[in-house]
């Protein structure tokens, strides 16, 4: 099929697919970010069981293959009488895994903070929470911009898992599989999706670099 034929027949579906991928990426990243912060707080808390739970979470979800997790959510969970819509399963899988990496990045952001600055805050009479709010969180976030940018791209790539379940509308990978099993889309169908993924990744990367340039802490 030529590009023109493909676009006239599937153009609106591609648009919907792009929006679906974007929507999944945005929602999953947001959830992963919030979850990642919670897990990081657990990992640096002075409460040992919470530290352990945080570490445990990270080890599980940075090591589980996305497909294995999605299959568990979609096919195995119903045996525990927990039935979730397909979209939610994809969203959960694409949020739980990046959350583990998010926590890893935030931890290394925290580890980059100069211990002396924490002492300086203490010596000025800041309470613990003030030290966290005014010194630790802003610095950890600033030094995590680049890794969080690549996490956003990684989250987008993970949303391709959506192609493994019947979803309506389909995502950018699902639509290619769909076209190629129903018609002979050839390479063109792939190229369109690849380009859309690539453009999204480039935009994210560009925005991340811009933000990083603004907020990066020079030492």
């Amino acid at each position: 099929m030529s590009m023109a034929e493909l676009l006239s027949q599937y153009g609106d579906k591609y648009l919907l697919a792009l929006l679906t991928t974007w929507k999944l990426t945005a929602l999953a990243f947001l959830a992963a970010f919030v979850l990642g912060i919670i897990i990081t707080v657990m990992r640096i808390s002075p409460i040992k069981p919470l530290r352990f739970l945080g570490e445990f979470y990270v080890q599980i979800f940075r090591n589980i293959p996305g497909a294995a997790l999605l299959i568990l959510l979609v096919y195995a969970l119903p045996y525990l009488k927990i039935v979730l819509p397909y979209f939610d399963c994809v969203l959960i899988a694409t949020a739980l895994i990046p959350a583990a990496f998010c926590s890893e990045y935030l931890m290394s952001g925290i580890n980059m903070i100069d211990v002396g600055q924490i002492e300086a805050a203490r010596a000025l009479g800041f309470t613990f929470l003030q030290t966290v709010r005014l010194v630790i969180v802003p610095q950890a976030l600033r030094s995590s911009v680049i890794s969080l940018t690549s996490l956003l791209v990684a989250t987008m790539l993970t949303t391709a898992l959506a192609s493994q379940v019947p979803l309506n509308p389909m995502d950018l990978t699902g639509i290619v599989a769909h076209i190629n099993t129903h018609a002979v889309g050839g390479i063109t169908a792939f190229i369109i999706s690849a380009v859309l993924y690539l453009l999204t990744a480039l935009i994210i990367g560009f925005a991340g670099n811009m933000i990083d340039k603004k907020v990066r802490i020079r030492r």
Partner: protein
Amino acid sequence: MSSAHLSVKDALYEAPGPKSRRAIRIATAISIVLIIALIYAIIRQFYITGQLSPKYWSFFTRWTTWRFLGAGLLGTFEAAMLSGVLALSAGFLIMLCRISTNKVLSMIGRAYIQFTRGVPTLLFIYFFFLAVPQFGLKLAAIWKIAIPVAISASGVVAEVLRNGVNAVPKGQREAALSLGMRERAVFYKVIFPQALRYVVPSLIAQLVIVVKDTTYAYIINFPDLMQNAKVLISNYDAMLSIYLVAAVIYILICYMLNKLAEHINNSTKVSVRG
């Protein structure tokens, strides 16, 4: 992650006074109770849905079950190894392009890296599963999974290698040149071996991603761990227990690879990330 110096994680809190110590003790007790409650709730859910019944678990005591899962695991290893070798070779070539002084080659390298880092592995897999056969190219199942997974990883591998090359001190090259070595010999005999040593941990970390990506092998019916788990499920009608065990096996493999990378990283003290 830990340094000889006091880490932030330790410096975050002051030495606790009596009040904080009591608060920490109480919070610890509460969190233990909550964690136990969570574990209880999970086990209870398994129990009331009948998933703890022996029929879902007893076959794990059978030798044949593990032999079959083991065969699947072997398939996973085969695919991952083949894919890893392909990714390393492709990554090396791309890295050569990327660091080349030839502008066109360098641009090609850069574009390839961008492309593979911005497109999901699944799209590559579907390409080899659905599009490549349309050109009459018949590939064995293992290639259909190994090639796309390798392509997907090769861009990052190239970047990792390039960072390794850049991390080799400049003096090394100058010293080798001053000994009369040719540029090519300097690169292959002096620079690259050192670069490779720097990047071993990052390459292992990349292998973890390759192992994870091979789980998509079920799409093309290649008998890896996931695919064999599927077959077992249809034999024993035990979806939850088998998928859970398969997931745990994957987690353990990746965990051990990551630990290995961490160990090497800590013992060489020099690391370069992609």
